[in-house]
């Protein structure tokens, strides 16, 4: 029996689902090994009977949380798809503003009876999927890497545990023979960002923006050294991380605390 697969989208750009569609001919191979039972962006049919649920986007409202819990209760395996689902992604940039300010800024001119007690407009600070339900696996990136998606699905179908690289983007960048973008006066989060994108941004002449999130146990010391070498500060780096990974600041702080504990 082919495993039944469903895709669900929350607040996001649907660019990650688009990468699945963009598999082109390979998607024909993929539907040989799985049965897609729900994929609103591409198909009309929908079924609540599924084994693997892919969740795209971040969680912004109580009505979204409720929908997500419902999906979790039906899925055997739940996979967070892309930066928004894994870490909050760009959506979490709005968490720097209090919710009431945002509402006032955006819907200030509206008739209050349209907005109050209207569940569509009932937002809270953006959450990653794992802040609401248990996530079994993550496919990070903004957008996801199609090949990594295909690898993860293949592993899941074979009953294996998909594993993400836990080394920095720099490793892949060196392999591709790129000149370090720091040398060109650009900023790069490659030294502390999880690889798996084949260093696509530095290869195209731009610094890594950390869209795949921090490594587990990142070597912040080495990033610090790199930053110092080029006259940049950790705060600047963490500010860059805010674009896709607002959790980075907290995680770096946590890592520092853990290190201090070990050194005690």
């Amino acid at each position: 029996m082919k495993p039944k697969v469903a895709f669900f989208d929350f607040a996001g750009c649907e660019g990650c689902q688009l990468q699945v569609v963009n598999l082109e001919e390979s998607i024909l191979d993929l539907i040989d090994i799985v049965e897609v039972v729900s994929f609103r962006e591409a198909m009309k049919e929908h079924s609540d009977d599924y084994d693997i649920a892919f969740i795209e986007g971040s969680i912004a409202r109580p009505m979204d949380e409720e929908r997500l819990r419902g999906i979790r209760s039906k899925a055997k395996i739940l996979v967070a798809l892309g930066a928004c689902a894994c870490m909050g992604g760009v959506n979490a940039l709005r968490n720097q503003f209090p919710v009431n300010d945002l509402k006032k800024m955006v819907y200030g001119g509206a008739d209050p009876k349209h907005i109050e007690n209207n569940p569509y407009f009932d937002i809270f600070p953006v959450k990653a999927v794992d802040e609401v339900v248990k996530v079994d696996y993550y496919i990070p990136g903004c957008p996801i890497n199609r090949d990594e998606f295909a690898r993860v699905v293949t592993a899941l179908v074979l009953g294996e545990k998909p594993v993400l690289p836990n080394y920095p983007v720099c490793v892949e960048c060196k392999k591709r023979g790129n000149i370090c973008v720091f040398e060109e006066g650009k900023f790069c989060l490659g030294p502390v960002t999880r690889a798996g994108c084949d260093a696509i941004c530095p290869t195209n002449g731009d610094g890594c923006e950390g869209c795949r999130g921090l490594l587990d146990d990142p070597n912040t010391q080495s990033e610090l050294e790199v930053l110092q070498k080029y006259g940049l500060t950790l705060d600047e780096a963490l500010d860059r991380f805010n674009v896709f990974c607002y959790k980075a600041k907290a995680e770096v702080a946590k890592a520092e605390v853990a290190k201090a504990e070990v050194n005690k």
Partner: protein
Amino acid sequence: MRDVEVKVEHVTRVEGHGNILLNAKNGKVHKVQWQVSEAPRFFEAMVVGRDYHQLSHITSRICGICSIGHSLASLKATESAMGVDISDQTLLLRKLALHAENAQSHILHVGYLVAPDLFGVGSVFPLVATHRDAVLTIVRLHRLANEMSDLLCGRTTHPITLEVGGFTKIPTEEELTDLKARLKSDIETTRALAGILLANVDKLPRFARETEYIGLTSDDEYALYDGLVGSTDTGRHEVRDYRSIVNEYIVPQSTAKYAKHVRDSYMVGALARFNLNSQQLTPLAKEIASQFALSAPCYNPFMNSIAQLVEVAHGIEDSITIIDKLLGMGLREEKNEVEVKAGRGIGAVEVPRGILFHDYTIDGNGKCVKANCVIPTNQNHANIQRDMEVFAPTLLDKGKEEIELDLEMLVRAYDPCISCSAHCLKVEFR
């Protein structure tokens, strides 16, 4: 006379979340509503305080499907705010990138999202078994468009190479020569796709409702990257006056804002562009339009999908012309030296679903202090609603499923990009 109640929650095969509600009693429509339930995202707040060079990378994330268009509108706004000029080479490469995205998005829409309705199935997947050649034709065109985006932007979705002032990396002459050869071979593939759709086009409802059509327009070309704002009702307007054209307002059934100009709604997108500028299409595009008896002005919103196909053909031929120009000039590495300057700038670009505006104010440190983005789908929501009000009463003799399908097809014809439209607007700081 019967009662009909239709509620389609989360219309499928469109980008984002929208619902359709229809309530009819004794053969009379009591309520018909297009609702947008997408979670609002507040992009204009997200970019505040960010460096000028990050703005296009953040706003491209408004939409996965039109990320190139958002990047370009963003760059144009930033460049206009800071007084940055771009080279002819950059201009031509950006126009190519825009063609790539239009093709990507239009083929996705016509091939994967609309075609299943014409073949009477729920998605493209069952067509793999029953109409394999048709699916492979669609896939082939879609892949070329994606690879063209990869080549120009470094990635299919969310461009890497597009930056303020130019490109971080440009394609080689060999790569462009190769792309040109592939585009040429895809002229026949496009004709083949047109043939497949032509055989099933009678499935598109015959419905017409005249409205105002708005899009970029130019004396020089079929306007996509640049131009004045054209209206079929009021003629040409300067881009800087965009706020008096879009006039956004809020309705309770939608987290996206609505827009109106001189009538109570207007339409943007491929059909609007066609109605404004069809004379400037390339020969292949005109040939395909005439096969479908599509001529301006066309008031049938369902023909938007056909106008998209016509634009795919235009994009292929125009891309070949652009590549010839680039190769004739010879490609060279350019250094993009940008000087930070305070100012306000507006960028308008035609993206797959219509005219897109980004409006930024940047301070002397190169930080964004204020932003406004007006999205094509926002501009179409009111027009979808008005169409539904006229279309729904004509459907009441049909079965419930058929009514649902027809209303869904109407929404789908606009190719709405709902995530885009629920990005939310007008952030006023202090």
